């Protein structure tokens, strides 16, 4: 009979645990706050939460196209950072860059990758994407 550790799923156990913990944390907080928290109703209290701004008009109106461009630029860097994490984790295990050609290659590749994002950023800046006037 196979144990859990024997099966190939064991490698994913940590991930599963993480998912369970994350979901549990959320559910626990929601339930706990309903049970423990005091209830006070009010106009401001029941307003739609928009990070402290006053909500104006309908949410389904058309946004300025700049919003999308900025959002996409944000996404670009967001994704880049996601890529950077595993790279950084593995880079440490490759040893110091000097002397080892492989890690130098590794560094250069990430440098190139970051460079492409920077080019996109510079272009967006130059094109006036971040200018709100």
């Amino acid at each position, binding site marked *: 009979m196979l144990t859990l550790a024997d099966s190939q799923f064991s490698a994913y156990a940590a991930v599963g645990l993480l998912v369970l913990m994350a979901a549990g944390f959320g559910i626990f907080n929601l339930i706990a706050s309903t049970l423990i928290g005091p209830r006070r109703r009010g106009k401001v209290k029941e307003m739609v939460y928009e990070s402290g701004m006053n909500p104006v008009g309908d949410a389904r109106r058309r946004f300025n196209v700049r919003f999308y461009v900025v959002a996409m630029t944000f996404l670009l860097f967001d994704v880049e950072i996601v890529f950077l994490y595993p790279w950084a984790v593995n880079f440490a295990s490759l040893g110091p860059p000097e002397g080892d*050609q*492989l890690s130098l*290659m590794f560094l250069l590749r990430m440098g190139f990758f970051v460079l492409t994002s920077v*080019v996109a950023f*510079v*272009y967006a800046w*130059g*094109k006036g994407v971040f200018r709100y006037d």
Partner: protein
Amino acid sequence: MSNLMVDKVATLWPEMVMLAGAVACLMTGLSSQASRRRTVVWIAAATLVIAGIIAAAGTAQATSGVGLAGMAKFIKVAVAAVGLLLLMLNTSSTSQEGVALMRDTPELGGEFFAFFLCSLTGVMLTAGADDLVWLFLALELTSLPTYVMVAMGRQKLEARESAVKYFFLGAMSAALFLYGFALLYGAAGSTQLADIHQYALDNPHDGLLMFGLVLAVVGICFKIAAVPMHFYAADVYQGAASPVTAFLAFVPKSAGFLALLLMLGIVGWPLPQPIAWLIAAIAVATMTVGNVLGLVQSNVKRVLAYSSIAHSGYMLLGVLIGPPGSAPGSGNSATSAIGNGVAAVLFYLLAYGFSTIAAFAVLACLRVENDEAQTYNDLAGLMQRRPALAAVMVVAALSLLGLPPMVGFLGKIYLFGSALTQGYVVLVVIAVLNSAISAGYYLPIAASCIFSKPMRDVQTIEAPGRQAGAVLAAILAVVLGFGGGKLVSSANDAGRVVKQKHADKVSQVDQEKQFTSQ
């Protein structure tokens, strides 16, 4: 492993130069000074020249296993050269008067030329691909910029419409061949073409592999506008600005054919029965559909779009034949360019490219009532108005038709001759009949230029680059018709490297076939 990686990067210098040039174009285009923005064209030109020189000076790429390694150098140089020609067409009018006259040819910005260079880089990368992921990225790098270029090139609603059509259908085809790639990976367990090739040799009857391969091939058919993925061609070619159309007719098509050769290289030549049958069927359907639809058109741009479809059909014959020495009993054909299907395709791509670029260039130079010249009537009597442009148009039409001494004739000789030496008599007969049908629309183009009375008030655009490009393309179409031999032999050399890479493995297939039949 690290050395391999360094080697691989070293073969990519032309592409890197192209990308750097694209970035430079992008940045220069941001300048607030119009004079500085105009230098973008020169930057792009310099980039192409440098990349071409580096590619020409570089050694043939060393790869492990399949791939168009031997061809990569030839293709990179050719792409850089044709890119320069296309760049000339895409330079817009610089004089003030010209701008006022031609509202729908805006001064193209840095983005346009950056995309232009990116797309060409995609073709170069396709030529060097040895991995499914690489191939996919290269193909998309070729295609994605073209969607934007179609939209940018012309300030008309038509252009936007065709850009959207092109994008959606292109995305659909990309999904198809990506699915095919996924199946190939699923079957072979590797994305390396060499590994998949080995797997295909070991398991010649793997249904999953065949399925993936055919899906990939059909998806790539979009790039070459072959049946059943040809629907977009006419609409997109018509909607885009003529110089951009010229770009569409050459660049994605080249990438598509290279990708096809790579894909079919997985199973190797002679192709397995079902695949060979499929390619032959697609070839026949493509050339026939292209030609009969071309006959019933009055819009020259659409006619040229259908002609582009038809020519893809002819070229598929070369894809079917493959590199030399792949068919039994073709021992001596390795010494001659004929019998080398890959070389024939490469040469025909250039032959077709120059001819069709010349035709679109003429259209790009002409304006009728503030719109592009498009119909036979617009071209009527061009000989009296603009003899040089009319001559270019006639040369282009006759070359596309395949009359000597234009280069199209030589291209057809090599293509059809190769097919004949491999015994595809029926296919060649169909192809020749199709060529005859195509006279039904090429000759009227030439005839309306020469013999008809002028009907519309045709003006010439003030863009010397375009006119020079038109004339240059036509001269090349004639000169290569005479002096194509050198080019053919280099295409032949390029095509033969593939064969040498294959030779041992192909014979292995034969042995296996004999073995299984016993």
